[in-house]
């Protein structure tokens, strides 16, 4: 009897799923989900929705890098709500999950957005996905502004792809410069992930710049996706090499393992991260005491006192109950940048994606935007952003400016 009941339940579930799958062609059903989620926006928007630009976001909403994708979507939603409430340019937002994949799943997410009628893409969130989707968007003539896809390969040879974050080389150069200036004579160990374009890119320029600036790199350790759960070898080697500073151009998940293992073996150098380290404090189950004294180079600090940041942080905390990280801030800025560019180019929501793309490309190098991740951000025609990086340090579980 139980079995029959289970089978019935199973069948009804499958039918329900099939029904959902079948409705895929009517894109209307799909748009309802995000709209319903962004409840405050949806309530204010309907009146103007007819004349709204369709803004797509794609990033990892599930899987190991989900914290970035979710932060980007949350940050973008706040900006969209604010802009819609102001009147003028109106946005409609849809987010799709690409699982931080660099192959088929990235393209699948992008295609789902295109079917919805996306006009501008705020994304992709990760570099791997950015390279793949970027090439496709270049062919399709869709304007892309990635909040956090920092690899140079994202913007290389594409006129329609712009970044809000720094490129990897810039992060590497800025980190080496900062160390040369503030930690003269430090012996640096680098632990990086060599199957990740992001990590490899930062390491390459860091090592080059470190050499030029006479920062001594005493040890370089690598790891990859499948070995990122144990770092005892690299840490022992770094300690043996006498490193008093460890540079970690990696994401926060492996970084958290490094921090706890270094702590367990009683090795206490200064850890220095880049933007991928951001988010470590919000990681579930992570003891923030381990991150005490960790430095990172990021354009955004949630405890900054300017009105723009304060407003954003307060709204983010009210909506999602946590302090926004740099990804959320980048996404928040990205939406404002798109709005500024659309306004400057005089685009209207009835234009198609390709026309908007052609209109925005010449405008981007001419605008300057003040956001939470930098004052007076400007762009080169190549897609690179120009803004000042800021070093922050973790103290008592929060980011503070040293």
């Amino acid at each position, binding site marked *: 009897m139980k079995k*029959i009941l289970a*089978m019935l339940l199973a069948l009804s579930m499958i039918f329900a*799923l099939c029904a959902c799958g079948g409705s*895929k062609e009517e894109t209307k059903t799909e748009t309802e989900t995000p709209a319903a989620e962004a409840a405050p926006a949806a309530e204010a928007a309907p009146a103007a929705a007819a004349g709204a630009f369709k803004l797509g976001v794609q990033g990892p909403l599930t899987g190991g890098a989900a914290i970035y994708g979710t932060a980007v979507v949350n940050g973008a939603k706040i900006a969209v709500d604010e802009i819609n409430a102001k009147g003028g340019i109106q946005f409609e937002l849809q987010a799709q999950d690409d699982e931080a994949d660099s192959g088929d799943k990235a393209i699948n997410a992008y295609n789902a957005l295109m079917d919805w009628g996306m006009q501008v893409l705020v994304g992709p969130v990760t570099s791997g996905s950015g390279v793949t989707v970027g090439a496709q968007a270049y062919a399709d003539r869709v304007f892309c502004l990635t909040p956090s896809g920092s690899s140079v390969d994202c913007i290389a040879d594409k006129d329609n792809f712009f970044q809000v974050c720094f490129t990897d080389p810039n992060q590497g150069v800025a980190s080496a410069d900062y160390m040369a200036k503030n930690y003269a004579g430090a012996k640096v160990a680098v632990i990086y992930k060599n*199957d990740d374009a992001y990590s490899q890119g930062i390491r390459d320029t860091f090592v080059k710049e470190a050499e030029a600036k006479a920062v001594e790199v005493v040890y370089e350790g690598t790891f990859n996706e499948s070995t990122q759960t144990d770092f005892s070898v690299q840490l022992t080697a770094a300690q043996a090499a006498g490193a008093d500073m460890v540079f970690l151009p990696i994401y926060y998940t492996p970084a958290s393992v490094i921090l706890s293992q270094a702590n367990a073996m009683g090795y206490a150098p200064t850890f220095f991260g880049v933007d991928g380290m951001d988010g470590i404090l919000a990681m579930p189950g992570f003891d923030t005491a381990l991150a005490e004294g960790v430095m990172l180079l990021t354009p955004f600090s949630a405890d900054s006192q300017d009105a723009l940041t304060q407003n954003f942080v307060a709204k983010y905390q009210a909506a999602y109950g946590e302090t926004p990280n740099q990804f959320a801030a980048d996404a928040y800025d990205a939406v404002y940048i798109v709005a500024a560019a659309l306004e400057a180019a005089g685009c209207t929501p009835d234009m198609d994606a390709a026309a908007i793309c052609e209109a925005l490309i010449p405008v981007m190098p001419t605008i300057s935007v003040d956001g939470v991740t930098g004052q007076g951000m400007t762009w080169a025609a190549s897609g690179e952003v120009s803004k000042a990086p800021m070093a922050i340090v973790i103290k008592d579980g929060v980011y503070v400016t040293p």
Partner: protein
Amino acid sequence: MKMKKKIAWSDYMTYIGVTIAFVIVSFLKKGGALNRSQLGLLVPICAYITMAISLNLTVGILGELSLGHAGFMSIGAFSGIIAAMSLVNVIPYDGVRMAIAMVVGAVMAGIFGFFIGIPVLRLRGDYLAIVTLAFGEIIKEILTCLIVGVDAEGLHILINIDGSKTASDLNLLEGGKAIIKGAQGAVGTKTIASFTAGYILIMISLIIILNLIRSRSGRAIMAIRDNRIAAESVGIEITKYKMMAFVTSAAIAGAAGALYGLNYSSLAAAKFDFNTSILVLVFVVLGGLGNIWGSIVAATVLYILPEALRSFADYRMLMYAIVLIVVMLATNSSKAKDLLDKLKPAGKEEEQ
């Protein structure tokens, strides 16, 4: 006699079924009834179907659990990309380059399959599974170190073991182009894969695999699976037939990899990790071990599923897992089997 006829009939139905599906989808495609997401799924589905039927040869027919199938796919993908990209100026026809890429991918994966097969096929059961898993990872690591470029002088290949080399160390001549940049994988690939190429690949793979299964060699392979000692006692050369199945499986996976790799403008070796091997294994197991037709259906349905579940937003992957469990329970329940058997007589003539 009757048995043989029935088997042949089911093979023809497989060919016809795939062809009908291809014709219907092509018509829909031409008529503009498919949206972008659906169009974008066609080539990866073809690649995964081919992967599933090739893995079914190792797991279902030969009866050895292989956990490194994505490794062969990546060899095929990267060698296929190198072949297609370096011939861009020589052969202007996309279709011809695609075919060459798939052949190169199959040959390279077949060669690797042979060399890996020598140590691996001496093992049995769990040990074999673990060693194939290790080889899959080794292949991925080596490809992560690979830097390849092409210029007027030909191919330049670097193996970047210590992580100190980059694409600029290739010293390419003016007009040269880096095809594979180490950990970043293949960047800037010209996408030439098409649905038609995918269909042809599936058909060729089916013809090879189904004919192998029905041949004398195929019966020997299945005899090894069913009882190794008995097979050996009647004079079947175990190593030879195991190798035959394993290399064929690897070569077809290589061709599938070439199709997959040439469908995306950028591809990193990290994509072909343990998870991809397991994904393909899930297709095979859910479709039924040794059941080629089942693998095709399972690969198609399970590949479309996560995309069809996009409307669940955040709960998408949760729903995917639930469906997997439900399908597994449903296909293994004796009640469901009884139910299917009752339904069968009516549809038997058409189905089987």
